[in-house]
């Protein structure tokens, strides 16, 4: 409980220096970029959401426009055919560009689901690829044939003896009529489909179909036939059949998606009408991909694959990358493979086919790009059946770019601001600390040297709280100064004030003495005189400091030999204090200095008095003079009691004394104060220490020469 109270009182970070505190405070501005990131994310999210909503609105509109238009999606009027499922159905891939009909299918996007594979006899097999682009249907037959047999001649296509491997293509047209065409090659290359027409007299003739392009090409495993058919020729069904022969004219072995017996096409062509594209193009927008799929998920058409917007360029450099690292923690930042993206689009279609429009977003083709998609079901005319799904997809990179740009700017700005705040706080704290410590040091020295308090503290002109503090310090020091000044002069003033009544007492006594004749009276008078004399001595002692101050004020400086002075004085002390032994260590040569020799002697007297007072009879008092180029050191050491701890230089203050025992002579603690005054007059200082071996005390005065 107490600790908590302490914490509240002093604050949790009171242990730090002011500078560190302000630095920590400045670092809180780092929350600014974080908040900015949160805001940018939120903004991006909202923008994307609104984008998705508008996309969904467009999608729903297009879906509405396609309501009941199954002939556009399936080129069929009825819906019953749409729902059934057949292995022979051809679901062409919607290509974004027309393939080159060259007998190579490698530029096609091969997808297992757009591929029909039929196995023939003897390990032979056929793969059928289908694709649409614009108004064309493209078929590629990849035939594995261990023995490719060409027709013998172009001229006799119906001569059974010259017939090689043949491929049949059969489809119904829009009016329900059946077309059966065959391809027979004499050696690869471009070829025409031909139809067998029966002329008069039952004569059969192979008529070329000019609207269908085809190229036959040998491949490693067999051969490839690539066919381009205008969608306008085609009805609902289409199929191919391979007549494989081991030699010309031999019996054929047929396999494929046609009925072998009558070459009728039963597999459906699930491809949109070319008119669907025209219909959709009116809704097309750059950068928006429109996909129409059947309710089973087969893609019928797709226009305008989402392009990479030209203005989308990722910010480069160290800082933007750091920012993105800081920002893009979410799932959509991953890159998704083409297949996965397609699967995601398909699953959206499948969900929407159940009847409800929906939006989704998934990763795009590039790092950090996002695709937003909206899908809506296409209903039949009666509104009961969903026969298709339209899906619009768009990259959300625009928003990402926006966000990136805004964020980079924001973060740069906040980083700069933070840096500025930190620097400013540091500077401010440094200045503040400097000011405070300057003030502290000034007040400490002002307080430390009680003799002459300096009242002018730094910061006194400042108009802030520190200035107030300085001013109140100043006034405090001023008051303290007045007080100490009062204390300092108190003794002198008292001495002066008491002197007059004392004179009255004394002169009265003296008169009484001269006139009184009673013996008893004389005893009392002599006692009273004794008392008044002691009182007089006290007054003299009390006024001593004042007199020394005055003497100092009227002192003249002169050059004199300090060594001779100390030597003479030390000799005299031996006579003055016969109970002590004096040892003087004084340089043999002259120690010239500038000062007042009388004052120096007086100072030495006080030091020796002090040493005598604090040492026992028979003690050896040493007086040492050491001369250095700029100053001299005069010290007086005596064995005896140690200095009270922590008195420091207070010993040299006025009215300070630590002596406990009382003797006859009055003491006011002025002796060492006088030493200090004289030392300061000579530009020096006085200090007191215990002797190194703790056998006594040493008082040292350092004087400028």
């Amino acid at each position, binding site marked *: 409980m107490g600790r908590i109270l302490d914490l509240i009182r002093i604050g949790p970070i009171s242990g730090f220096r002011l500078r560190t505190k302000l630095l920590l405070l400045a670092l809180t501005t780092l929350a600014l970029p974080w908040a900015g990131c949160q805001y940018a994310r939120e903004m991006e999210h909202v923008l994307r959401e609104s984008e998705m909503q508008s996309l969904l609105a467009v999608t729903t509109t297009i879906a509405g426009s396609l309501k009941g238009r199954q002939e556009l999606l399936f080129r069929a009027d009825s819906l019953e055919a749409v729902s059934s499922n057949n292995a022979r159905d051809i679901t062409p891939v919607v290509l974004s560009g027309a393939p080159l009909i060259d007998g190579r299918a490698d530029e096609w996007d091969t997808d297992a689901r757009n591929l029909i594979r039929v196995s023939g006899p003897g390990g032979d097999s056929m793969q059928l690829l289908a694709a649409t682009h614009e108004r064309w249907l493209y078929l590629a037959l990849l035939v594995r044939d261990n023995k490719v047999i060409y027709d013998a001649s172009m001229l006799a296509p119906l001569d059974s003896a010259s017939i090689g491997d043949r491929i049949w293509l059969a489809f119904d047209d829009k009016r329900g009529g059946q077309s059966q065409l065959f391809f027979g090659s004499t050696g690869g290359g471009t070829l025409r489909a031909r139809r067998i027409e029966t002329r008069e007299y039952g004569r059969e003739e192979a008529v070329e179909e000019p609207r269908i392009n085809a190229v036959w090409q040998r491949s490693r495993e067999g051969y490839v036939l690539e066919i381009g058919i205008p969608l306008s020729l085609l009805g609902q069904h289409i199929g191919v059949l391979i007549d494989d022969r081991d030699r010309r004219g031999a019996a054929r072995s047929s396999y494929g998606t046609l009925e072998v017996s009558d070459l009728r096409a039963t597999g459906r062509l699930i491809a949109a009408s070319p008119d669907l594209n025209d219909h959709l193009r009116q809704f097309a927008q750059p950068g928006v991909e429109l996909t129409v799929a059947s309710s089973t998920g087969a893609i019928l058409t797709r226009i305008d694959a989402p392009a990479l917007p030209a203005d989308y360029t990722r910010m480069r450099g160290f800082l933007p990358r750091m920012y993105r690292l800081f920002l893009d923690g979410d799932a959509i930042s991953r890159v998704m493979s083409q297949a996965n993206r397609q699967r995601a689009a398909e699953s959206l279609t499948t969900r929407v086919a159940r009847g409800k429009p929906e939006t989704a977003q998934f990763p795009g083709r590039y790092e950090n790009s996002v695709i937003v998609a909206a899908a809506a079901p296409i209903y039949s005319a009666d509104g009961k059946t969903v026969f298709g799904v339209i899906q619009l997809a768009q990259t959300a990179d625009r928003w990402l770019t926006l966000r990136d740009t805004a964020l980079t700017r924001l973060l740069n700005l906040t980083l700069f601001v933070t840096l500025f705040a930190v620097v400013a706080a540091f500077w401010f704290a440094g200045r503040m600390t400097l000011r405070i410590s300057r003030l502290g040091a000034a007040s400490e020295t002002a307080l430390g040297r009680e003799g002459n308090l300096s009242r002018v503290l730094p910061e006194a002109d400042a108009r802030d709280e520190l200035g107030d503090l300085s001013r109140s310090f100043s006034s405090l020091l001023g008051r303290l100064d007045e007080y100490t000044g009062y204390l300092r002069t108190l003794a002198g003033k008292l001495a*002066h004030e008491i*002197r*007059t009544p*004392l*004179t*009255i007492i*004394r*002169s*009265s006594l*003296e*008169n009484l003495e*001269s*006139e009184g004749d009673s013996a008893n009276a004389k005893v009392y008078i002599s006692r009273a005189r004794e008392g008044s004399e002691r009182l*007089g001595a006290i*007054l*003299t002692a009390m*006024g*001593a400091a*004042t*007199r*020394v101050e*005055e*003497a100092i004020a*009227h002192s003249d400086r002169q050059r004199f030999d300090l060594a*001779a*002075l100390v030597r*003479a*004085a*030390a*000799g*005299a*002390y031996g*006579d*003055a204090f016969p109970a002590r032994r004096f040892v003087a260590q004084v340089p043999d040569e002259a120690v010239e200095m500038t000062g007042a*020799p*009388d004052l120096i*002697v*007086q100072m*030495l*007297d006080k030091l020796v008095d002090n040493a005598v007072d604090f040492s026992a009879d028979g003690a050896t008092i040493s007086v040492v003079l050491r001369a250095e180029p700029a100053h001299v050191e005069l010290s007086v050491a005596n064995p005896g009691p140690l200095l009270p701890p922590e008195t420091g230089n207070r010993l040299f203050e006025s009215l300070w004394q630590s002596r406990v025992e009382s003797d006859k002579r009055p003491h006011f603690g002025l002796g060492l104060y006088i030493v200090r005054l004289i030392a300061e007059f000579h530009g020096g200082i006085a200090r007191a220490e215990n002797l190194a071996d703790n056998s006594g005390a040493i008082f040292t005065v350092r004087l400028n020469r």
Partner: protein
Amino acid sequence: MKKTIAIVEDERAIRDNYAAAFSREGYAVRGYPNRREAMAAFTARLPDLAVIDISLEDEPEGGFELCRELRGLSPELPIIFLTARDSELDAVSGLRLGADDFLTKDLSLAHLIARVNALFRRVDALRRPTEEKQVIRRGALTLDSERMSVEWNGQVVLLSLTEFWIVYALTKHPGHVKNRQQLMDAANVVLDDNTITSHIKRIRRKFQVVDEKFDAVHTVYGMGYRWVE
């Protein structure tokens, strides 16, 4: 005829005590509490000696003013300054005004009377021709102990009574060191070390007025002073 001593002192008890002591010695005493009354009386009739307190009632330095006015009336009249203040400035000011001596009030009555007697003796001696036996000659110094006058190289050095007694004590046995106590005894004063020091300083200065090279008073550090011929 009784010699008249004027005491100008605002403290009645002190004035009366001093008056009693002087009366006992056979002097006629008149006391005045302030400058105005004293001056009025002095204009009517001059005393033979004046003891003046520096601080008089409402005038902190009224004694100095009185001294100046009194000197205007009589250049020879012995004047003793008496004060509770023993600061150097007061001493210097008092002596410049031509006071014969400057004493602090803690001086005993006996010492005070000794001084008064000495000053009267001096006044008498000045009226008589010089008696050679009272004269001490030490090189350039001529000291008349009767007249309490000092000459250096034939020029008069104006010393106060205290200063004269100090010089007298020093020159009696030239070369001998006199410590401060001995000098105080000789001068009939109780002074502290600083006052003796400043007396010595002042004595040197006064001699130096008539002879810049005067250096006969030597300081023996830690012991005292001696006269060197």
